[in-house]
């Protein structure tokens, strides 16, 4: 928990470069790292994706199975999102139950999917109030080089877009699988999260691990296909001015467009 002399030198180097308009890895301030998306990588899952965002790598699997609805939400399917930073992903990652960082990560990714209405959950009801389809999205962080929010968000979105939903019929009050009747998920929009870090007055899109260490504050802004904002999460040890928040919104809306096009290609 102590910032060493080395860390302080690194921070100084990063900030000095920023003041000259440069990022340490040569990207533009509003530029994400190279994004690779591969779907269908886990054939035992109903949907899956392997996403690399720079050197951050995620494998996400979707499992779909009948479940009971949440109380008072008997006309909606279930969506549950988890994350684990595998201990092989980083020297500081430890096995065991998720800490607050990982819980926040999973909940932010979850909220982006849920609040955007990406999946039409009303189409996932087998028998109202009794039996619905549950979608589990589990994110395994395989290599951690910063900005897990966006990497997990893209991996989850891509895995959902590529998944096939099995068919169940209710027989004697029990859901029974109908073989060979898979369908595409009922997608209404494609949410894209853009996470930005503030270092001094600079706003950086998709900070890598070295930049992440220097962040004063961060914000994740998720937008839907209409360019509207559907989820927000501020974090970090400092805050944002209202002007900075306005700027972040503009950046997020703009930066999301290209990534949404990439995600659309995984569809179908």
């Amino acid at each position: 928990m102590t910032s060493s002399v080395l860390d302080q030198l690194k921070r100084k180097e990063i900030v000095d470069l920023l003041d000259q308009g440069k990022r340490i890895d040569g990207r533009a301030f509003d530029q994400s790292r190279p994004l690779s998306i591969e779907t269908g990588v886990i054939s035992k899952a109903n949907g899956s994706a392997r996403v690399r965002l720079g050197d951050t790598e995620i494998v996400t699997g979707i499992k779909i199975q009948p479940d009971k609805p949440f109380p008072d939400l008997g006309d909606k399917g279930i969506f549950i999102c988890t994350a684990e930073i595998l201990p092989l992903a980083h020297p500081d990652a430890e096995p065991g139950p998720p800490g607050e960082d990982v819980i926040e990560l999973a909940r932010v990714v979850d909220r982006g999917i849920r609040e955007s209405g990406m999946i039409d959950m009303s189409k996932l009801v087998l028998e109202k109030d009794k039996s619905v389809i549950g979608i589990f999205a589990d994110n395994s962080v395989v290599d951690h080089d910063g900005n897990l929010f966006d990497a997990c968000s893209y991996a989850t979105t891509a895995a959902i877009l590529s998944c096939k939903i099995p068919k169940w019929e209710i027989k004697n009050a029990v859901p029974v699988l109908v073989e060979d009747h898979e369908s595409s998920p009922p997608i209404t929009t494609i949410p894209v999260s853009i996470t930005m870090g503030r270092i001094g007055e600079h706003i950086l899109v998709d900070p890598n691990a070295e930049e992440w260490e220097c962040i004063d504050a961060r914000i994740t802004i998720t937008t839907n296909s209409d360019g509207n904002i559907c989820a927000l999460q501020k974090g970090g040890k400092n805050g944002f001015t209202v002007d900075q928040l306005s700027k972040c919104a503009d950046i997020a809306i703009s930066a999301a467009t290209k990534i949404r096009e990439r995600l659309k290609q995984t569809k179908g």
Partner: protein
Amino acid sequence: MGGRESTLVLLDKNGIRCDGRKIDEPRKIMIKAGVLKNADGSAYIEFGDNKIIAGVFGPRDVHPKHLSNTDTGILRCRYHMSPFSVTERKNPAPSRREIEISKVIKEALLPSLMLEKFPRTVVDVFIEVLQADGGSRCAAIDAASVALADAGIPMRDMVCACAAGKVADTIVLDVNNEEDQAGQADMPVGYMPNLNKVTLLQLDGVLTRDEYKKCIDTAIGGCKLVYQIQKKALTDKFFENGGNQ
């Protein structure tokens, strides 16, 4: 969020909300500082039907020691709901929701504290929600910031928090529980009024770019109202009750 069906009239033709408030009117807020004997600082808030106590201990030694930082003091925060605080009895073990809220509250309060003055120590903020209503994380921050001031922790500013949201296509201040369930968006905002910085920002629901801006501005307006109530609570404690406690 996102338009659950309801027969509730969220906003009538006179611009009056389901609980009788105007669009820019917060619920009733009452804050009292210094309510606990053992805590170094404390505050009690009633914000709508929220009833929340915050207690602060520190700066004090960190256990276990490996969590301490030689450069600065650290902040720990626990947001917890009593089992009887909600309609269905809540399991006393902390839920994922409570753990996330604890973290965002910590990061909302952190910018206001001069913890660098107390290396190797910890300040603990414990928040207990005795009764929960819409906007409990904002109310929790409001109480916690008063409790931190009551504990004498050196501060750069207060943190005041209030939500704004979108209800019946209108941006309104301080979304209540029914509006949160049936409305279109809820955006809790934490704000340092003198440093003019937003330290908490979350969103459930969908907003256009313009509504986003308007929502932030509306919420900050509410934060400034809260700030006056926070100041009064501290003044009341130190000048009215200060002598005989």
